[in-house]
């Protein structure tokens, strides 16, 4: 049965890891804006295009 103690300790630790991740994300301001990131992720990267231009020059 003592393996359950170990398993529970691990599960609480894992959950605690997620809690810490959440606390960190709130403190670093990731939750301040819950709309713009959804727009931002739709932008295409233009990296190729700009490289092309620079090569020409």
């Amino acid at each position, binding site marked *: 049965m003592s393996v*359950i*103690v170990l398993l*529970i300790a691990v599960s609480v630790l894992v959950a605690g890891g*997620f*809690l810490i991740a959440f606390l960190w994300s709130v403190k670093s301001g990731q939750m301040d804006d819950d709309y713009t990131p959804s*727009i931002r992720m739709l932008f295409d990267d233009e990296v190729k295009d700009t490289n092309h231009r620079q090569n020409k020059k």
Partner: protein
Amino acid sequence: MQERCYHCGAECDEKIILDNKFFCCDGCKLVFQLLDENGMCQYYDLTNMPGMSAKGKYASEKFNYLDSEAIQDQLIQFKSGDQAHVVFYLPQIHCVSCVWLLENLSKINPGIIHSQTQFEKKEIKIIYKPSAISLKELVQLLAFVGYEPMIHLGGNDWMKRKKVNRKQLLKIGIAGFCFSNIMMLSFPDYLSANIEELGTLRPFFIYLNLLLSLPVLLYSAKDFFISAYTGLRQKWLNIDAPIALAILVTFGRSVFEIVTQTGAGYLDSMSGIVFFMLIGRWFQDKSYDSFSFDRDYTSFFPLGVTAMEAGKEINKPLSKIEKGEILLIRTDEMIPADSIVLTDGALVDYSFVTGENAPIEVPKGATIFAGGIQKGRAIQLEVVKSVGQSYITELWNSPILKTEKNTEKSFVHPWSQYFTIVLFGIAISSGLYWWMVDSNKILPAVTSVLIVACPCSLLLTVTFTYGNVLRHLGKSKMYCKNASVLEAMEKIDTIVFDKTGTLTNHEDTHLEYIGAALSVEECIAIKSVTRESLHPLSQLITQYFNSVSTLKAVDTIQNFVGKGTQAYIGSTEILIGSSSFLKMMGVEMNSEIVGSSVFLAVNGIFKGVFKVNHIYRQGVGEMVQHLKLKGYQLYLLSGDHAAEILNLNNLLGSDVTMLFEQSPNDKLNYIQELQNQGHKVMMVGDGLNDAGALQKSDVGVAVTDQTHLFTPASDAILEGSMIPQLHNLIDYAKKGKLIIILIFILSLIYNLVGMYFATRAQLSPMVAAILMPVSSISIVSLSALLSFLLFSSLRSRS
């Protein structure tokens, strides 16, 4: 078919073509070229015609005041070595393209290191190198691409809000973590048929639970204890007091059971309740971030002005401006303080102050009031009163406004008081009963009653219902400051309207021509002349002759600033302007027309008058009738002259009290008089002239046609197009209380069930653990359902 501008979507009068694309003006073309050169045409791919019209807007000297160090210090949040951080409010942000362009500004100017927007708050944070680009150049760039920042005296209040928000999230996160883990660890206890089977694992589970409940008690639930304590110190039992008591009793009893090894306690119920209540508060408090409800005059005034000292232009922060100083006010700049006009050409738009939007000509030597916007050329002024003492700003210092608003406590608190009294009654009587029957069960029975019947369901009902109502109102474009506005709205019996901009539409003006009929030739000539001028009235006349498509070249044109225009087309002379201008030019006429109007003479002969009429919003009449039926007393306070009284009588009915030529102070005093008579007043108005009245009234509703425009301090912001729906919106806001009562009855049933177990001293942790989430979830979903049903029935009515 008319081509639309590739940049801003405006109709193109002139054909400016570049790369097979049409542009309405050179400004828009320049912005396009700039973006094209930097390979940023994705701006146009993301949204069709995303740009802001750049027509006649850009004046680079406008931002000269940003060179002043004192002003820079106010704006820059953080500066170290080669980096500076600054945040601007950009009300123009409206689409995906905006976000894309603003976040790629570094492609245009390498001095910008990073820029990040917040769409809902309409803010941009820019990190830049002050050595490579000055603050002024940065703002000029933003303004050039069409996003001119709003820079005002009373700027950054947003930092505080953000901090509060984060703390609330942290508390919810911790409570959620602890709640779910405690719940999981409690399962073996509930589910095993024989507790003995668990053996040594049981104490391990229980003590782990106790450990997990500590952060909930000490951190997440902190606000309840603080609020209960401050309430009790003021000898006032608020809703948090019984909640705090229930949390403490639950925790105490659980610890007792654990230590004496008689049970597992109710720690899962306790943390669950705290978690749900915190979510409820967060749900109710989610605010409209892009609006500000607490603006005083400082938000309307510019941060800096140009002063003249010894013939030189000096940029000064507005707060340093004193009596006797000479100011230079350019086109489209605001007059920051009551002053005397020193030069010719003052043409002032007081629409901000009075609601009247036709510019007024102010002669040299006359007094000009703060809050007006100069429409003519640059003028010089001598300040006679400091900014804080000017006519319009003095309103805010009025002692009438110093009294606090909405200090009345929510109806929830008295309810929770009755609730608490009944609760104690039950607890004491069940205690007495067990004292006579079996004294071992006194403590379990009494504590169970307190655990089960905590008024948290009442708090949940209130927070979620108001949260839902606020959201639905927001969908109908009525944005309330907070939930207490809804309660205040419920008590309203009197509604006061402003006229201009509230019942009429600011933008929608209707031009009426009174006088001798005009020939086609004359129409063409007039349009050819008026389209040369940027004066707002000329533009209205140009629009009036929309059907005229042919135009003629104007041979000579002479503008008399603030007076009118004289122009020749061939041999035809056109005179357009004020009546005094026409008289000055030797035109004979007699016309008595009040209000904003433009006089016209062709070849020296008076032809007629273009009169500007405001159009009343459609459906205003019906809305007023509905409100009357509901028993509201209605008033109209207008800063305008009484010329419209007949129209208004027809529209609103003669039983609406109407007062004209009301100064901002008159309005404020009138509201106070109504309140002194015991009325609860809602003020519906716009502009600075209503600012005092909006603030004094029990519910101040600021009307705006563009939500990004500044509205004075108010309790709610209503989009102008929704004015005809006002009666429905008020109705819906009032329904909140009905929903709360209905759901509260439901939660009483849950309480009775729990009480049945509790008074028999039979409340097992499992019953508590089932009852708690079931009641919370059903309350939340019922509240959402009811508020949605009522809202959709309101929509179908409109």
